[in-house]
Every structure is written in C-alpha cells, then in structure tokens.
C-alpha cells in the first residue's frame, strides 16, 4: 500500500451547493502533498471528509488503507489533524492539552508525559508549556496545534491552512518543522494552503483546486514549465540589439522588453542560460545585466482558472 491517501470521485453537497465536485487524489507514502486554492475552493471540505469529520455525498476515500466511511474509528487512530485556525481551548495550558490529546489516543501516564515533553521541546514550547493557551501568539498556537496532532505518531498528517494569518518568521518555522517530520519519520502530509509560496516551498506535488474541481496536478516545477518558458531579459548596448536578437532567436522567440533590453522566452528552461551567455560572449556582445523570470504557480493558477490567486480577496471559509 504505497498510497496512504486515495480519493475517488469525492463529492460533497451542502443543499444545492456543490462544494467538492468529483475530486480524485492519490498521495504517495512519504510525500508532502499541497492542496492549493483560493478560499471556498473546497480544500477544507475535502480535508474534513478525509478526516472523518464530514460524510461523503458521493465517491469513496481511503486513508492508510481504511475506508473513511466504513472504518472511521480506525482512520482516526492513524491520522494527525491540525485544522484551520489552530483549534485549541484557550483556558488550558499547552501541557494539559497534550495530556488530554494523549489520553484520547489511548496513551497513558509516564509515556504520555514523556511524549508531551518531547513534543513541546520539538516545537519550541517548553518554556510556555504551563501557560494558558490564551496567552500564546498565533505562531505558538499553530506549533502547539501541530504538536497535538503528533502525540500518537500518526502515519498521515492533515494540515489545513497551517500558516494562514502567521507572520513570515513563524511561517518559516512551521515549514521547517513539517519538513523535519517528513524527513525523519517519513510522515505523509496533506496540506491545504492558499499561499503559492507555501505550496512551492513545501510540497513535492500539488493539486490546484478551484470551484470544487482539481484543475491542475503535478510537481510544482513541472506545472510551471507546462505554462510556458521562462522569460530571459538581457541588458545590452542598444547599438548591438539587432545582432543579439539574431543570436537569441535560436533559443526562443522574442518577447516585449524595455528599450535597453532584449527579451526572449527561453526554451528548455533555466538550464540553457549559460549557453545563451556563451554565444553572446563569442560575438563579444556584452551583457551588463540579466534577469530570468520563471513562471510562478500563480501563472499556473491563472492559466487554469483565468484568475490570479496572489492577493485575491479573502472571502469566507475555504
């Protein structure tokens, strides 16, 4: 069983609204899978179905080989769940919550408290362990939330928008922690996000979801290269632009650029930059400045949906 998360034709309706409309997922063991989409795209609804919190309107799904509808109690034993907005009780302390979570997972006494200490250490909350969660910062809450989802060493971890609303430093720290978990224990991670950078940085493979439908799926680099070639912009003395264009035409078609620049869509991607520079150098054309703009996941999103994700207005829950 090398796909701990499998979903086929997943559908969820709320009355007339179809929140998730036939989602297929195959997440491989040890993979960090990113589920990228704007608010309301169906990310959280999908995660809630996979984590047994919501019934399926149609389709089927297995997590760690167990059917989420027929064997939800077994699924709950093998998954770790950190849902949107750090779902934790503010009047308890970090240590108390870890203890509670351990008991719910059947871990008791000494083992539970050792495990709690270890997790607090791991997410850097040892000093704050006996403070009430209400006094924690947003980043600390998320880290505690992550620790809570790990008490039973889950095989599969679901993180629903783990860094939404966090500052860049806290976001980095959380990414670091997720990577470390994935490296050390081979934990399979499904993470939803509306941040392009997060998907790009963290996920080995991503699915872009919009309107309840997966519109693109693959490795981030592969998806980006499918959108088109990166744009190479070169600052060259204008008197030699014609010569330069002649040479550059063999590397890709010309693209619009400011007057002092020449730009092409570099076919074959970034690997060919050196080649370009060498051929220009051979004809002693001097390049004073160079820029290579790879297509971003936002370009992928735009190509798939006709809209931009970056800076999209936040509307409603995902």
């Amino acid at each position, binding site marked *: 069983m090398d796909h701990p998360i499998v979903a086929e034709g997943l559908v969820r309706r709320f009355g007339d609204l179809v929140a998730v409309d036939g989602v297929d997922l195959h997440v491989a063991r040890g993979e960090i899978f990113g589920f990228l989409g704007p608010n309301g795209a169906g990310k959280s609804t999908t995660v*809630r179905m996979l984590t047994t*919190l919501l*019934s399926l309107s149609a389709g089927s799904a297995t997590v760690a080989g167990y059917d989420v509808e027929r064997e939800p109690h077994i699924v709950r034993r093998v998954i770790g*769940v950190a849902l*949107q907005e750090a*779902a934790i009780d503010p009047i*308890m302390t970090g240590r108390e919550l870890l203890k509670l979570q351990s008991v719910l997972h*059947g871990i008791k006494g000494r083992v539970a408290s050792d495990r709690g200490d270890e997790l607090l250490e791991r997410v850097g909350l040892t000093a704050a362990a006996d403070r009430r969660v209400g006094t924690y910062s947003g980043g600390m809450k998320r880290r505690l939330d992550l620790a809570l989802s790990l008490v039973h060493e889950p095989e599969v971890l679901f993180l629903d928008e783990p860094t939404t609303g966090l500052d860049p430093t806290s976001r980095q720290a959380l990414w670091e922690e997720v990577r470390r978990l994935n490296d050390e224990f081979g934990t399979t991670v499904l993470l939803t996000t509306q941040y392009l950078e997060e998907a790009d940085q963290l996920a080995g493979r991503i699915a872009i979801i919009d309107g309840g439908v997966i519109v693109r799926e693959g490795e981030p680099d592969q998806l980006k290269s499918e959108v088109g070639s990166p744009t190479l912009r070169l600052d060259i003395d204008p008197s030699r632009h014609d010569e330069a264009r002649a040479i550059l035409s063999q590397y890709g078609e010309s693209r619009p650029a400011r007057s002092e620049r020449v730009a092409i869509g570099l076919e074959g991607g970034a690997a060919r930059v050196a080649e370009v520079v060498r051929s220009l150098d051979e004809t002693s054309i001097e390049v004073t400045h160079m820029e290579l703009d790879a297509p971003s996941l936002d370009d992928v999103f735009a190509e798939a949906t006709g809209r931009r994700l970056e800076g999209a207005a936040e509307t409603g829950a995902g």
Partner: protein
Amino acid sequence: MHGTGVASWIAHAGVMARRSVRGVVRQPQLWAPSLVFPLFFCAVSAAAFGRTTNLPGFPEVDSFLTFLVPATIMQGVMFGATSAGTEQAIDMENGFNDRLLAAPVARVPLLLGRLGGIMVLSVVQTLLFTAVLVIAGASFAGGVAGLVAMVAVSALMGAAVGAFSMAIALKTGSVEAVNGFFPIFFALVFLSSAFFPPELSGGWFESVASVNPVTWMIDGTRDLVVQGWSLQAAFRAVGVAASLLVLFLSLALRALRSSLRS
C-alpha cells in the same frame, strides 16, 4: 481497541470531565452569578412573602425560608448548568470540537465527560446553599441521608440541564442560541411548586405546575427538607432528575450524530 472498550470509555469520559471541571474553576464568570442570584431571590422572597405560610391550606412548614430551600438549590443548579452548552458551542466555534471528533474516541464519553464540571458545580452549590440557608434559620429535617439525596438530585438535574444545553449547542453551534434557551429553565422553576404551593393558587397555574416535572422533583426534595428522610421522597426526586438526564442526553447524542452528517 478503538475507543469503544469500557476502559477507554472511562478514560475518555474522565479526561473530558477533568477538562470540564478545570474550565469551571478557571472561569468564575460562568458560575459566580449562579451562587449569588438564587440566594438573593431567596432572601427577597422570604422577606416579602414570609407570611404566606399562614394561609389556610399552606403545607405544614416551620418557615417560608425552609419552604424555599429546594427552590433556591434548583435555581442555582439550572443557572450554572447551561455552561456545558456554552462550552460545547465555544468548542464548535473555535474548532476544538473537531479535534476531539477526529480522535479515536466514542461519542458518548465525550458528552458525558463534558457534564463533569456541571456536576461538581451543582454539588458545591447544593452544599453551600444548604449551609447558608440553615445558618439563616431554615431547617433541614432530612439529615445526612436527606442531604446526600439532595446532592444526587442536584448533580443529576445539573447534568440534565447541561445535556439539554449541549443538545442546543450541537444543533445550532452557537453560543447565543444556548444562552437564548436559558430562560426556559428559569420559567420551568417559576411554573412549578418551587415558590408557592400550586394547590393554593388553583386555576391554570395549578394545572401547569402539576404536570411540570420540576414540581415533582421539588416536591420530593421538599419532603426531605421539611418532613425528614424518606426513601419514597428521595426516589421520586432522584427518579425525575435521572429520567430528565436520560431524555436530554439522548437528545444531545442525536444532535451530535446528525451534526456529523450535516
């Protein structure tokens, strides 16, 4: 073992109860009013209507204050008990409830555990109110056995009201809705024999009060307070409270089950 064995039921209900007790202890704003207002009402009623005991046909009792002991305790218990629903709704609003539901835990112990804080609060209220009222001059004829029965009725009744408020919370997911239903129990106490013997009022009040379960319960506990220990009175009061608990708990469980499918 997947959270359905008896041992894990007990462990899960226990850990939830501990959390619920902590929640009560750490949030005095939830229960402080329930200690103050019933005693205030009791003092006002005793002062204003103290002489109603002289009415012909008023049940045999040494003072109106003694007559009010069960009413004061039940009022306090109902005042405090909706916090179970409030806590449930808060957990649903902030998502903590999902964290609990995503754990390998049977649903019944989750509900039962949440009633722990309420039950502890109800016991404390009962002991405190009894002590205050006895010091103020009320008598308590039931003795230790009567007090134990009174405590049991309070704990069960607190849990029952708590279960009802949790059912509302699970149905609506809203703290406001839970608070909105709160006056129902207040009304039930006023529409019972708590403050006045219905048989003396006659009319619609007597009809309503005589079918109000709160009346049956109050009458049982009042017999313990006024006349002394009797197994029959204790059974009546405990039986009504326990039946209400079973009824409301099954409502809450149904609400929980349907909330999982919505």
